[in-house]
């Protein structure tokens, strides 16, 4: 890997497959928490201009919950999980057995609960990546923010921006149905070196 922008078709397929397995694990973790069945859609992996990142979650000004972890050890970079605010409220409501007023800001308990959900979901995702690649991945504690999609995505976009004008987005949507959607999107943002390490460990470097 000499250039962050060049990904061949096979590498692309592998990344998508990691996305597939990772989001499968994440959905399983979520299903256990909620004690209900969760359907997952086939994940889409797309190499898009970082300008288009916010579009994928509904536009720059869509309010989203973003959960960010920094990665260290064999794979360095960031991992982000993004949920639309409606999905976050739905999920919280299910977990806390209460109807949550979407016009009210989240209280500390609810924020902390969401953060923990993010931790479990991203943890499930990362452990499958780690299993597949046999690489050690250390994740930081989760950091959470609720804001405009454009603003939240600027953080990973800037990281991608150091490498080029494209970002790799693994969009893993899961949820029971579109109305009570409780799913989200993953962004895995390895550094250029770590990206090479992932590919090499999968034998397609």
């Amino acid at each position, binding site marked *: 890997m000499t250039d962050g922008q060049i990904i061949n078709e096979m590498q692309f397929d592998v990344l998508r497959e990691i996305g597939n397995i990772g989001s499968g694990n994440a959905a399983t973790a979520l299903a256990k928490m909620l004690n209900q069945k969760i359907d997952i859609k086939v994940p889409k992996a797309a190499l898009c201009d970082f*300008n288009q990142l916010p579009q994928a979650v509904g536009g720059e*000004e869509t*309010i989203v919950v973003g959960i960010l972890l920094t990665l260290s050890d064999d794979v360095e970079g960031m991992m982000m999980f993004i949920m639309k605010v409606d999905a976050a409220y739905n999920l919280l409501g299910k977990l806390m057995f209460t109807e949550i007023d979407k016009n009210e800001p989240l209280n500390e308990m609810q924020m902390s609960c969401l953060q923990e959900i993010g931790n479990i979901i991203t943890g499930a995702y990362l452990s499958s990546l780690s299993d597949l690649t046999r690489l050690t991945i250390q994740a930081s504690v989760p950091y959470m923010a609720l*804001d405009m999609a454009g*603003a939240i*995505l*600027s953080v990973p976009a*800037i990281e991608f921006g150091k490498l080029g004008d494209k970002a790799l987005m693994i969009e893993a949507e899961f949820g029971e149905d579109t109305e009570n959607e409780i799913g989200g999107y993953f962004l895995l943002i390895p550094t250029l070196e770590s990206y090479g390490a992932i590919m090499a460990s999968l034998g397609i470097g």
Partner: protein
Amino acid sequence: MGKMIKIGMAELNICTPPDAITTLGLGSCVGVVLYDPAKKVCGMVHVMLPDSTKIKNNTNRAKFADTGIEDLMNEVLKLGAARRNLVAKIAGGAQMFAFKSDNDMLRVGDRNVEATKNKLKQLQIPIIAEDTGKNSGRTIEFYPESGELLIKSVGKTPYKI
């Protein structure tokens, strides 16, 4: 009513009345407006990173504070602005996640603001208004007719600087 010209991340554009220029959902990036109040011409750039010389892949000049602001100034001058009249308004550079660590990767908002200010100082363009740092995203709209920069954040009343 004029139209609203939209710029995305790492883009720049120019604007004259009655149009206005906007960028949506600024996070750790910085939105820089250069404006000639006499001629009422302006331009905006949405910079993502502080320094083009630190990055290998730097062909997109609007992405960086140093090259982006320079290019923006040239575009605004081409539009008829006078060099000595130019003033700047800046917004953005928020720290979106409340990190406790001092990991450099996560302090990019501060560094963007710093680099923007340095570049403007070097070009001798005064900053007449700013709303930077803090921890929330901003949508900004600049109206060259009035010279006002409107800032919108989630859960706050929009305000002008």
